[in-house]
């Protein structure tokens, strides 16, 4: 994963609430064995409507998406994060996110920025005409009009994002601790340690 520092540019003022991952990327697009090329199917049902904001030339290539409450609810498909990345979106700003989506976004270097609805409303206004800036280090969202909103980020996630750390690599360094756990489990809960081998 590439390190993430700040994201600046136009923001798509989408604003919808409870955007589910079937909307972000419909199931027909999940048949791929790659992570690439999903922008084509992103928001397919939304883009079927004439005059939709996603296809508005004003926001082509915008790196930020603004949405309503509970963004990314529903399925666990990481394809939703891949589709956003493929569209060029590397930050999503919303009042709240589903747990699985925010994890998937984080693992792909997409910032999920939670701000209260009134700040979102303000950013929706700004986004129509001007760029927005999201800075991970200072944990702020700013506009050319002196708006300055701070947001929370989990310290571990911030560290991983800013350094572009590989989580699997980090955990593999803890192999000894995992081995110790496995050894204890085989003693105390042997039935759990056996898995698919029982009937083999």
């Amino acid at each position: 994963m590439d390190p993430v520092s700040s994201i600046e540019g136009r923001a798509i003022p989408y604003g919808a609430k409870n955007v589910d991952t079937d909307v972000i990327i419909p199931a027909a697009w999940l048949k791929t064995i790659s992570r690439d090329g999903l922008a084509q199917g992103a928001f397919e049902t939304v883009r079927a409507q004439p005059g939709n904001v996603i296809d508005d030339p004003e926001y082509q290539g915008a790196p930020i998406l603004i949405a309503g409450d509970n963004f990314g609810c529903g399925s666990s498909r990481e394809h939703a994060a891949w589709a956003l990345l493929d569209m060029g979106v590397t930050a999503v700003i919303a009042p709240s996110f589903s747990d699985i989506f925010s994890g998937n976004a984080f693992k792909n270097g997409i910032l999920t920025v939670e701000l209260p609805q009134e700040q979102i409303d303000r950013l929706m206004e700004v986004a129509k005409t001007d760029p927005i800036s999201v800075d991970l280090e200072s944990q702020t969202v700013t506009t050319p009009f002196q708006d300055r909103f701070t947001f929370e980020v989990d310290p571990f996630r911030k560290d991983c994002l800013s350094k572009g750390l590989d989580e699997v690599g980090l955990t593999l360094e803890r192999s000894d601790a995992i081995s110790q756990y496995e050894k204890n489990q085989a003693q105390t809960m042997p039935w759990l340690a056996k898995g698919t081998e029982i009937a083999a």
Partner: protein
Amino acid sequence: MASRPRTLYEKIWDAHVVETRDDGTSLIFIDRHLVHEVTSPQAFEALRLAGRTVRRPDLTLAVPDHNLPTTPRVDAAGNRIPIADPQSAAQLEALETNAPSFGIRYIGATAAEQGIVHVVGPEQGFSLPGSTIVCGDSHTAAHGGVGALAFGIGTSEVEHVLATQTLLLKQSKTMEVRVNGELGPGVTSKDLILHIIGVIGTAGGTGHVIEYRGKVFERMSVESRLTVCNMSIEGGARAGLIAPDETTFAYFKGRPLSPTGEDWDKAVEWWRGLHTDDGAVFDKSVTIDAADVEPTVTWGTSPEDTSAIGGSVPDPMSFADPNKQEAARKSLSYMGLEPGQKLSDVEVQNVFIGSCTNSRIEDLRAAADVLRGRKIATNVKWAIVVPGSGLVKQHAEAEGLDKIFIDAGLEWREPGCSACLGMNPDKVPAGERCASTSNRNFVGRQGPGARTHLMSPAMAAAAAVTGKLTDVRELVK
């Protein structure tokens, strides 16, 4: 171990902490990992590129389910019938190759044990009480019905679990959903969970693990508990739990991968302690009166858009939240419904009985009880029954349920996810309605333009008979 009273969730969590870091995240050991063809290819590819192996192939089980057509899989000569969609075929082939090459047990498309991952896990005795279970699928929450901490993960996490058998997690908050009293006649676990989601909303459980508590759940079969916990994610909670009890232990006794002998005795002894202690505190608590739950259907495009079957399509202006008003207007436009329209007047052209929510033997029996000796309505053009696994299918056939369905005019299919999300050829045509026992009524979920009404198997069967949304209690007195 701490003597402070703990919730069931905390007990399972504590038993799986490998280590806790200074920033409060813990490395959690994963006991069981289910893998299917849709969310795994990129994970296996990443392992291969990094030269990494699967740490515990013995704790992983791979089964194809999403893409498989539900039409026959072998011809008269016993040869496998090729899959027409080249993308589906490629994804299925990837799993069939990846699983054995990483040493993972693979249940193939034509095996009797094949089925939807969330049906197969408990059925095989792979998903055990008190274990941590993950799968690249949000309905992994289902396994909480056996008292396991089970949740859906993304593909990067699938890769992490394959490589390390752990996940780095922050402890969730806890939420109690307590149901008082008893469900009325003709009201099922599906009606109850739809009702609960209607009350708490699709974000009601975000950041929380739900524990369902009360006599209603204690009296439920394991299958009904799986249905309830399955849809926890529709209430925003990554996991749902029901404490294991004698019903659970009886369910697991003798299953292929269940513990045996001394292991079994030790397991049951530990399982008996898996319940929330008196005095343990939940971060959030919701109480529901079972007497308020009627046979329930959805009218909109969010699982929280629920109503008792006796009700009407709501007026969007009746919602206090302006966002919800707008969402409801859009939903009704997509669904082709008018405010005030009686739900029991809404005609359906399609019926789908299946999915990881409702495709176990108990579900099929409930549908067959309604359909026995009846025919589907003439306006119902497509009605299919898709068992959750090959073993469920065999079981149903041994009971003659397949004949009841076929005689009534429904199609009896091969197991898989099918029309729940239409990754295989089973889709609902645009603009048509489907009475569906699945879990999501999202825009386009069952096919582009498809209109989904979620309900229980008995209610879907009733809709098949009358051709419209129907209170099953009127058919089964």
